[in-house]
């Protein structure tokens, strides 16, 4: 395969067909096409409407609690003994992760479109909780599809969603995890297409979702840029974030893509190792078509989708957002991977050294910070996206470390 041509800007995608290079697109059943086109048109209007943007800004400030701090992690910096490490504190958002940034944008759009029934898929439950929260805030019906396996291992989040008034539907089909939850949400949407808004939780799915979710998450990178200029008087030298579907990562990266001096790293979940069970679509998969888009996927030689495995339920999806696939192929972002064991170690390290319990997802990024930071000079500024808090993971980590709660 020829290397794709370098574009003038890394921020101009997708094209009118929803493509980032060969990735993305609209690979959906005909029943959904009119809705996807309607959504695209509605979003195109909304993003230019000052009233919509002002409403979003107000809720960001007063409901989510933005801007999130850009925090100098002094003790981690000293511990690793190299780059100066900053954390973008997305875990301090209402509901405990970056997911709420996207859900707010989509729910306000659903309201504009007059849709009163909201469906969502969730893996670890963070997106489900964020969706249930905003549906409660705006009085909308909320149905969350969650693989039966995830329902069992993320019981606290299931209860949170129910407290917030959502209906949680355990998905019994297929492998009963996130990809099956997404299949089931798509089936619901096909069936209830007139009344229902599908609130996708990451930068994947058919166009316009990857671009729309990225736009809503880009507040992370935009704030980081401003805060860094204020704190250090210059841009950071490197950015790093964990990548499952990749919404927190693209949110941090996108505003910096056209800054050639900024190195960018995404960290996938290597599970038990890339030669064993893992969830690293770019490092260990190949391009294919699933859930409405072409992107790197985990699959067998016959094109059958394989299960992802990660210690983190938020990363064990067998795909990745199409823009990440393109940024990989074009060489703008470097994709690394961290194993379950590395993440578990980083989880404990950040808790003890910095006084912050990170989500297991983010612990993957921290594991690679631990490798990269010591190789950089002391004036190198590295920003890691701390996209979620680890409270939800405490029962699981306790069990892994042999503690009965």
């Amino acid at each position, binding site marked *: 395969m020829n290397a794709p041509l370098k574009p003038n800007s890394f921020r101009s995608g997708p094209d009118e067909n929803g493509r980032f290079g060969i990735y993305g697109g609209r690979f959906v059943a005909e*029943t959904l096409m009119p809705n996807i086109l309607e959504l695209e048109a509605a979003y195109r209007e909304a993003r230019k409407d000052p009233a919509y943007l002002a409403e979003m800004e107000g809720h960001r400030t007063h409901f989510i609690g933005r801007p999130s701090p850009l925090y100098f992690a002094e003790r981690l910096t000293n511990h690793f003994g190299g780059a100066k490490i900053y954390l973008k504190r997305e875990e301090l958002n209402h509901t405990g992760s970056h997911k709420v940034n996207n859900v707010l944008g989509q729910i306000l759009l659903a309201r504009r479109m007059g849709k009163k029934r909201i469906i969502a898929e969730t893996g670890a439950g963070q997106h489900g909780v964020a969706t249930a929260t905003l549906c409660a805030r705006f009085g909308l019906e909320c149905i969350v599809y969650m693989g039966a396996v995830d329902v069992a291992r993320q019981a606290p989040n299931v209860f949170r969603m129910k407290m917030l008034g959502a209906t949680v539907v355990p998905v019994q089909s297929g492998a009963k995890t996130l990809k099956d939850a997404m299949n089931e949400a798509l089936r619901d949407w096909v069936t209830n297409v007139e009344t229902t808004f599908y609130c996708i939780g990451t930068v994947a799915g058919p166009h316009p979702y990857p671009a729309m979710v990225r736009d809503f998450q880009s507040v992370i990178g935009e704030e980081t840029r401003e805060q860094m200029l204020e704190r250090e008087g210059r841009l950071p030298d490197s950015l790093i974030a964990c990548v499952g579907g990749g919404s927190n990562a693209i949110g941090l990266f996108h505003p910096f893509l056209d800054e050639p001096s900024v190195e960018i790293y995404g960290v996938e979940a290597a599970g038990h190792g890339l030669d064993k069970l893992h969830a690293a679509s770019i490092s260990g998969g190949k391009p294919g078509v699933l859930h409405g888009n072409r992107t790197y996927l985990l699959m067998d030689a016959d*094109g059958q989708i394989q299960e992802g495995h990660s210690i983190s339920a938020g990363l064990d999806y067998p795909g990745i957002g199409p823009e990440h696939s393109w940024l990989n192929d074009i060489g703008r972002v470097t994709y690394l991977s961290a194993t379950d064991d590395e993440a578990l170690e980083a989880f404990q390290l950040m808790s003890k050294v910095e006084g912050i319990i990170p989500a297991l997802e983010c612990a993957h990024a921290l594991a690679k910070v631990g490798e990269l930071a010591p190789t950089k000079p002391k004036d190198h500024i590295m920003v890691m996206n701390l996209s979620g808090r680890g409270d939800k993971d405490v029962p699981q980590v306790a069990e892994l470390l042999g503690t009965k709660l």
Partner: protein
Amino acid sequence: MTTRLDARFADLAARGRAGLVTYVMAGDPDRETARAILKGLPAAGADVIEFGMPFTDPMADGPSIQAAGLRALAGGQTLRKTLEDIAWFRQNDAATPIVLMGYYNPIYIYGVDAFLADAKAAGVDGLIVVDLPPEEDSELCLPALKAGLNFIRLATPTTDDKRLPTVLGNTSGFVYYVSITGITGAATPDFGKTAEAVARIKRHTDLPVAVGFGVKNAEHAGAVARGADAVVVGSALIEVLKGSLDSEGRATSGSVAAVTGLVGSIAAGVREARKAAE
């Protein structure tokens, strides 16, 4: 270019009756049983065969077809084997049109050009690929048409008059009208409304219109046949096959007959429909 599909629908029109399109899954529950069912369909009354290509993540299908695909995959079915099964069928049947139905990823991974060449050589007549709307025609539809295969598109209740020309643009063979907004095997549609929908589609095309999704028995099939060129039945066949399996999910001596028996009864409903209406 006249394909087996064109010839079959012309013949049905000449006889003044609707056709029966039957959907079964390749490799379900095992390859030998699926082959025996495939071979038995024309004699049982199937005018056109849709042969399902198993996929792990069939996002527009209901539980019956999902489970059938997973049974087939667990038994080792692959796209290559599915094409071999059709070549095997063609040794004894040169006339019954066969349409492969499924999702794009296995075809994409097989390689579009290689797949089209091998499908044509095996005796496939058309393709229905659920997750390739007209917006993605350059992926497979246009190359398939060039290779001499029909590309059959699904039209749905959400496909309004404005969008119909887009959907029908590169469609050939027949148009598959999905009678409900929903997944396969779900609710039973209001069959009175399907006749209106078929008439609406026919204002935009000369192609035959087949109606499916929700047809479960001879009575439904008869109701649809009065207003359409063909009736599609799928999930009901998969269900009756599943009901014939043993507790371990294996085929029994009654499995093939369970499917062909239901096809026979539905075929009778289809053939009697217009006579009854006269």
